[in-house]
């Protein structure tokens, strides 16, 4: 069985760059345009994973394991974040019977 870095290197590096840029921009647009808190949340995850892909690709191409380690850290942080974030969303839903972020405008001035 081939080594995983070798598998990754079967695709040219530029493609990874195009792909994760596209994924990241989709995430940003999703965060900016959607109103449902859960969808916004998913878009944030999308951005994080776009970065993960890029890190893994560079790590393989440069034969440097640091990037992969970084990926694991990001995954762990994302998992923790999801945990807290979803809990907040549940609480929002209980209070507002909705997850629309535009209704959350009481904290001002």
């Amino acid at each position, binding site marked *: 069985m081939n080594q995983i870095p070798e598998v990754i290197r079967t695709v040219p590096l530029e493609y990874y760059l195009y792909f994760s840029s596209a994924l990241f921009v989709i995430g940003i647009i999703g*965060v*900016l345009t959607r*109103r449902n808190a859960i969808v916004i949340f998913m878009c944030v995850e999308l951005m994080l994973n776009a970065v993960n892909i890029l890190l893994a690709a560079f790590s393989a191409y440069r034969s440097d394991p640091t990037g992969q380690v970084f990926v694991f850290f990001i995954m762990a942080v994302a998992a923790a974040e999801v945990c807290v974030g979803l809990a907040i969303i549940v609480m929002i839903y209980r209070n507002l019977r909705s997850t629309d*972020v*535009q209704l959350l*405008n009481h*904290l*001002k*001035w």
Partner: protein
Amino acid sequence: MQEIVMPFDKQEMALLCLLIPLLPFIGFAINGLGNRKLPKGLVGLLGCGTVLASFLIAVYLFMDFTSGGSRPYTVSIYDWISVGRLQIGFSFLIDQLTLFMLLMVTGIGFLIHVYSAGYMSHDENYGKFFAYLNLFMFSMLLLVMGSNYVMMFVGWEGVGLCSYLLIGFWNKNTNYNNAAKKAFVMNRIGDLGFLLGIFLIFITFGSVSYPEVFASAAQTPGLNGSTVMISITLLLFVGAMGKSAQIPLFTWLPDAMAGPTPVSALIHAATMVTAGIYMVVRSNVLFIMAPTTLEFIAVIGLATALLAATIGLAQNDIKKVLAYSTVSQLGYMFLALGVMAFSSSLFHVLTHAFFKALLFLGAGSVIHAMSNEQDIRNMGGLRKALPITFLTFLIGTLAISGIPPFAGFFSKDELLAHVFMHSKVMWFFGLLASFMTSFYMFRLLFLTFFGSFRGTEAQRHHLHESPAVMTIPLIVLAILATFGGFLGIPAVFGADHFIGNYLSPLYTYAKGINATPFEPIHLSHETEYLLMGISVAVAVVAIIIAYVMYVKKNTVPAPEDARLAPAHNLVYHKYYIDELYNALIVRPLMWMSGAFHRFVDVVLVDGVVNGVGKFVMLSGRTLRYAQSGAIGFYLMVMVFSIVLILFLNFFIG
């Protein structure tokens, strides 16, 4: 070159020496903390007992000192300040002068403490009063016992503080508080001079401890009459001017009579105000090297003696008369210092302490009997109601007037003889002041104790002799005022001058520089008898005039609103000196303070401080609209900001 005699170290006396100032301090701490909680009897016992113990220790030290061959010694307790060249030890110097002052301060202090126990018995702040008195004793003892100028300064400031606290003791009265502030501020002016003098001493001699400074001054003949010596002594004398109420810093002392009468007796007559004289005598080596300063001191002393005596002629407040007489007598003492009669000056300090404390306490007894009336126009005929007070007051008055054989005669006569040798003109003016002193003191006596009672009916019913706790100190002081003069019987009567002989080792260095002033009075016996005769005659004439005016003719000083002859008016209003100071110094200072307040403080300082606050408030009020509460907006701002940062980072960084 001078032979140097350094005081030796006598460490075994450390505990006793330390106890002398420490005991009153313990009394202060207990009475001060237990004010209104401790029973009055205990407070009085503590207050008087600690001072009595100090007195007894001082007596023991004196015995030990004289039996040990009268050799001065130092006792060091610990190193207090040690910075580079500056070494200041917390140590005591025990010599003739220290013991002299110690015995006087603790002895008279004890009597006045006892008297206070009776005089203040109706006051609710009895504990506070005794605490302050004890603190005063502590500071005064530190002042006279310290072995360097810095310790003297600590005591000097301490007595100033206590003077302030006690003048304003009845602090519900604004006038009294103002009097206290006046005393404090005027003393600060003098203290600044004293402090600068100490700095200059340190710069010149590299030390502030008495033995070292005096030895090095005596060993440097080049300093004799030099500018630096004149500067040092003048600065020290400025300090003495403030503390001992000399022109131009004397106006606080008459106002200081706002305090309770025992305070006037202890602080503003017998002890604190003589600190200036103590300082000059202590530094006699330095002063003898600055003849210019001495001449200046003599002139100031004489001017003060005359000025205060003339003001005393027209005052109607029993304590004010005594206050001006104190200022006048202090002027005398400085006159004596100026003509280098140091021992005579100290002798007068001692006798003055006896008779002036007696007079003040007598006045206190009168005020007590008259239910706090102080105006002699409302007294009269108190002789029968207050026999003991009258008799003791009479002795005090005779003593201050210089009638033999009372104490004042010997000291004043010796003093005037020295002045006579120095300058005939000064002697004449001194005699004039002495004439006025006898006149106003007997005016006071006659108006208070003779004639008919002029007070209200209620006061007449209340008249009573003071309790024994007040009369016994009066009697003791009267005995001292009668016989105290025998400590210094002049050689012309064929006796040893005890005080003069006892104090003479103090001037060993000074004699090496200028021996003339320390030789015995070399007047012929006829001249000396003549001088005595003249001064007694002058006093007797003054008494007769006072008798004719106030007993035979029954003159009563004009009431407050009467029109007075111009000269009388001028003297009655104390030459308008207070008004002059107000116009020349107080008003401009007040105006400047007001101007600084309006422009610097309100506009500049407050402007900056409030401006910063206003700016923060304003920007906060404006920027808060950015926090709209719309999450979508926040997210957008965040994204665009990150993009902007990346953008800037890419193109600029």
